[in-house]
C-alpha cells in the first residue's frame, strides 16, 4: 500500500509540475552562450579582472561578437580583431524542468522514507504490542469456547488489511534477518 501511495503522490506531483513548466524565472533560462576570454590587458585594454561572459543568445550568434563585444567593447580600444580569437565560446543547453522534477521527487522520497522510518521506530512497537495482546486475548477466548461464533469486532474489509499486514510482517522479518546477518553475526558485508 505504501508503494502505491508513493506512486500516486509522485504522479500527481509530476502532473502539477509539468503544468507550470513555463513559469521558470528568466534568470534560470535553459540556454546560454558562455565565452571565456583572457583579461583585456592582453591587448593593452583597460584593466579588468573579468574572464567570463554569458549571454542568452541564439546558437548562431554565440560568438565573440555577439556576446563579448557588446559588453566590453569600449574597454578594448579598437583591438577587437586581436582580442576575439583568444575567446572560446560554447553554446550550452540544459533542462531545469528535469532537475526540478527530479529534485522534488528525491525530497519527497527521502521525507516519506524518514516519516515511515520514524513510524516504524516509535509508533509501530506500540501498535504491535496492542495487536499481539489482542490476538493473545482472542486465542484464549477461542480456547475457552472452541465453537465461538464470528467475532463482531472484525473489520469490514479484512482481506485487504490482512494481506497488507501480512506482507509487512513478512518484509519486517526479512529485514530482521538481514540485520542479524550484518549487524549481529557479521557474516556478510563487513
Amino acid at each position, binding site marked *: 500500500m505504501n508503494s502505491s501511495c508513493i506512486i500516486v503522490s509522485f504522479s500527481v506531483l509530476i502532473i502539477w509540475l509539468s503544468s507550470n513548466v513555463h513559469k521558470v524565472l528568466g534568470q534560470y533560462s535553459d540556454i546560454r552562450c558562455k565565452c571565456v576570454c583572457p583579461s583585456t590587458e592582453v591587448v593593452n585594454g583597460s584593466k579588468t579582472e573579468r574572464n*567570463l561572459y554569458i*549571454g542568452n543568445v541564439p546558437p548562431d550568434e554565440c560568438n565573440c561578437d555577439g556576446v563579448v563585444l557588446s559588453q566590453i567593447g569600449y574597454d578594448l580600444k579598437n583591438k577587437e580583431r586581436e582580442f576575439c580569437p583568444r575567446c572560446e565560446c560554447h553554446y*550550452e543547453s540544459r533542462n531545469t524542468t528535469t532537475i526540478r522534477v527530479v529534485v522534488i521527487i*528525491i525530497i519527497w522520497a527521502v521525507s516519506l522514507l524518514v516519516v515511515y*522510518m520514524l513510524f516504524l521506530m516509535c509508533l509501530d512497537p506500540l501498535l504491535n504490542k496492542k495487536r499481539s495482546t489482542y490476538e493473545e486475548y482472542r486465542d484464549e477466548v477461542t480456547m475457552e469456547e472452541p465453537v465461538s461464533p464470528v467475532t463482531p469486532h472484525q473489520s469490514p474489509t479484512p482481506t485487504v488489511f490482512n494481506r497488507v499486514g501480512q506482507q509487512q510482517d513478512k518484509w519486517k522479518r526479512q529485514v530482521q534477518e538481514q540485520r542479524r546477518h*550484518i*549487524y549481529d553475526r557479521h557474516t556478510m558485508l563487513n
Partner: protein
Amino acid sequence: MLKVSSKDMEIMETDSLIKRRTSHNVKMSSTEQTIYQSVNGPEGPLKTSDSLENTESTKKRPRYVSSDDEMIDITGTGTTSEANLSQSHAGSEMDELPPGIGQYDDFHTIDWQRDIARDRMRHRYIIKKRTEGIWDFVRGIHDAWSGWLCVLLVGVAAGAVAGVIDIGTQWMKDLKEGVCPQAFWLNQEQCCWSSNDTFNEGDHCAQWYTWAELFGHFRDDAWAFIISYILYVMWSLVFAGLAVLLVRTFAPYACGSGIPEIKTILSGFIIRGYLGKWTLVIKSIGMILAVSSGLSLGKEGPLVHVSCCIGNIFSYLFPKYGKNEAKKREILSAASAAGVSVAFGAPIGGVLFSLEEVSYYFPLKTLWRSFFCALVAAFILRSINPFGNDHLVMFYMEYSRNWIFVELIPFIILGILGGLIGTIFIKGNIMWCNYRKQSLLGKYPITEVLVISLITAIISFPNIYTRMNSSDLIKLLFSQCGVADISPLCDYNRNFTNVNSRIEIAEAGAGVHRSLGLLTLALIFKLCITIFTFGIKVPTGLFIPSLVMGAIMGRMIGIGMEQLAYHYPYLWVFQGACSTGENCLSPGLYAMVGAAACLGGVTRMTVSLVVIMFELTGSVKYIVPLMAAVMASKWVGDAFGRRGIYDAHINLNGYPYMDSKEEYIYTALAADIMTPRRNESPLCVITQETMTVDDIENILKSTDHNGFPVIVSQESQYLVGFVLRKDLTLALANAKKTQEGVVGESHILFTAHSSQSSLGPPAVKLRKILDMAPITITDQTPVETVIDMFCKLGLRQVLVIHNGRLLGIITKKDVLRHIKQLGNEDPESVLFN
C-alpha cells in the same frame, strides 16, 4: 544408511555387469540399464537432439575453455548428463511437478548444469509446440525475444535511475555550502548558470547564497568562515546519519559497495533480498545522501549493484529468466555492464568490466546482450543529460596533445606508485574490516558512520581540495589550464602581452606551489580516511576515492615534469618538443594516467580499466600510456598480494567464490577431500525402492545435508542418482496432500516400476525429482581436475565412486575449505552451504 569402510573398498571388484557409459559418468547395474533405455525409448530423435546439444554445450560452457583432453572428457560428461537429465524429464512437463521444485534456499549454491538443462528442456518444449497453433507460435516468438526485451528494459531503467541519482547528487552536494533561494532545486553551478554577473568561472553569483549570507552575514571574515564550517559539518552529519539510518531500517543489504557480493552471486550463489526492490530504493537514495555528505566514497560501485537490482526485478517479468537462476545470471551480467556504462559513460568499458571483473559465466550471447544493455543505458542517460555538459560523466575531458616517448617513464613511475597505494589501501582496509568484524566496533555501526563523517567533515573543510566534492576535484585535476583560469592550480607566471603567442608552458607561480602542498595533504588524508570509510554501513563505492588519490598523485608528478621541461627545454629527452611547442606537457594527462594506475592498483582491473579511461577522455591516443601505467600497477600490486580489493573482501567474508582465473596446484586425490573421510560416520544415502516415508522423514529430521545420493540397495551400493533435500521435502509434502492413502509405511519409489509386489499402501513415486545424471568421479581423480570441474562446469557437488559403488561426496564447500587449508588460512571461514 551405509557404512563403507576402507577395507571393503579395497576388496571391491569390478562388476562385470556395469556398463561404462562414458569415461567417468553414470555407471549402472544391468537392471538399471534396462530402465534407462526404456526412458530413452519414447524420445524418438534422440541422436539428432544429442548432437545438437553437443554443439550447443560447447558454446554454452563457462569461459576459459581449455583444450586439454581432460577437458574434452568433462564436456562429454556434462553433455551426457544434460541429455540424460532432460530425457529423464522429457516425457513429463515441468508444470506437473509441485511448485518450488528447482528453486534454491537462501545462501545456497546453484547447480548450473541442472538449471541450463532445465532451460534447454523448456526451450525444446516450446519449439515443439510452436507448430501447433497461432497462440503457441506467438508464445514461441515471445520466448525468443524475451532476453533482448528484458535487457532493453533493464537498460532503460538503469539509465533513468542513474540520471536521477546524478541529478540528485549534483543538487545535494552543494547544500553543505549554500542554497539558491529563488530556485532551491539548483546547485551552485546551475544557479549561476545563466547569470552574467560573475567575472570568473566558479565564482558565486548574486543568486547563490552561502549559509553565512543567508544568516545576514555578508562580509567575508572569520565569522563567515566559522558559520560555513559549522553548517558544513552539520549537513555532513545529517546526510550521513540519514543514510545509515535508512539503510539500517529498510534494507541492511544496501550497505557497502556490492561488487564482491555481485561477483559471488554471479558465480552461482543465492542471497535472497540482496537484489530486491527495497535494496534498490534505499541504495539509490542512500548513495545520494552518502556522496553528498562528503564522505570519501563514490557512487560508481553501488551503481553496479543498483543496476543488478533492476536486472533482477525485470527478470521476474519473464519466467524464463525469473525462475531459472542460471539464466537469470545472464541478465545480471548484462545489468552490471549497464551499471558501469552509466557510472562512467563508458559502454564498452562496462561490457569489458562485466567480462573481466564480475561475471563468471559469460557466453557470447551474453556479451551481445551486455553490449546492447550498456548501449541503451548510456543512450537514456545521455538524453537526460544530468550534468548539462552533453556528457555522461562529470569529469569528461578532451585532450588533443600528443605525448612524447620520454613521458613513458613518469607514466610507469605513476603505475608503480599506483600499485603501492593500492596495496597499502587493500592491506589497511582489510585489517580494519577484520578488526571491525571481530571487535566491539561492529556493534556500533551508526556511531561509527557518524564519527567517520564528523572527522571527514572537520578535516576536509579547511583544505579547498578536500572540501569540494570528489568528482569536482577529479574534474579540476584532469583539466588543462586555460587562458582564463585563475584558480591557484593554474597560477603560472604567464605573459600574455603578445596575443599571437600560444599558451606556452610557464614557470609555476606561488599559487601552484601552495596547491602542491595542499594536494599532498589531501592525498594523505584521502588515503587514510578511505581505508576507514570503505566498509562502513552506508552505500560506499571505491572508484572515485581511488581515482582522486591517483589524480592528485598524477597531477603533482605532472607539474614536476612540466617544470622540468620548462627549465631544461633543450634536454635531448624532450626531443625539442617543448622548445617551441604548445603546452607540451600537460599535468592534466598525468592526473588521468595516475588515476587509472591507482584504480588499477586497488581493483587489479586491466583491460576494462584502460577502456573506461579512454572512453572518459574521448581519445584513443593515450592507450599506450594508460596500458603501461595500469600494467605496472598490476605487477607491483600482485607482487605484494595477489588479491584485488573485491577478492580480498570476498575472502574476508568467506563467500563461497571459486576464482576461475586462479590456478591451483595440489597433489591430493578426490578420496582425500571427500566426505566422509576415512574413519568418519558413513554417508547418508537413500535406497531407490526399499525406504518408506517414515524413513525418509527421519533422515530429513536427523540430518542437515542438502542432498542425498540414491543407491540401488544397501548391499550393492550402486549409484542411481541424486536428490536434493528441498525437492524431497516439497515432493513428500505434496504427495501427502494430493495423493490418497499415503501413510508412514508407504514406500518411496525412485524407479519407474516397482519390482516388489503391490501389497500394502500405495507407493510414492518420486522419480521426477531425481537427478539421474549426477556428475561422478572416481576416488583416484586428482583434486586439480575436481577444482577445474567445479570452476568450469559450475557444479554444486560431485559424487565419488569406486568401481561403480558410491564412496562419498565432494561439495563446493569441501573444495573451498581444502583450498583455504592449503593456503594456510582458517578453513572454517567458509561460511555458507
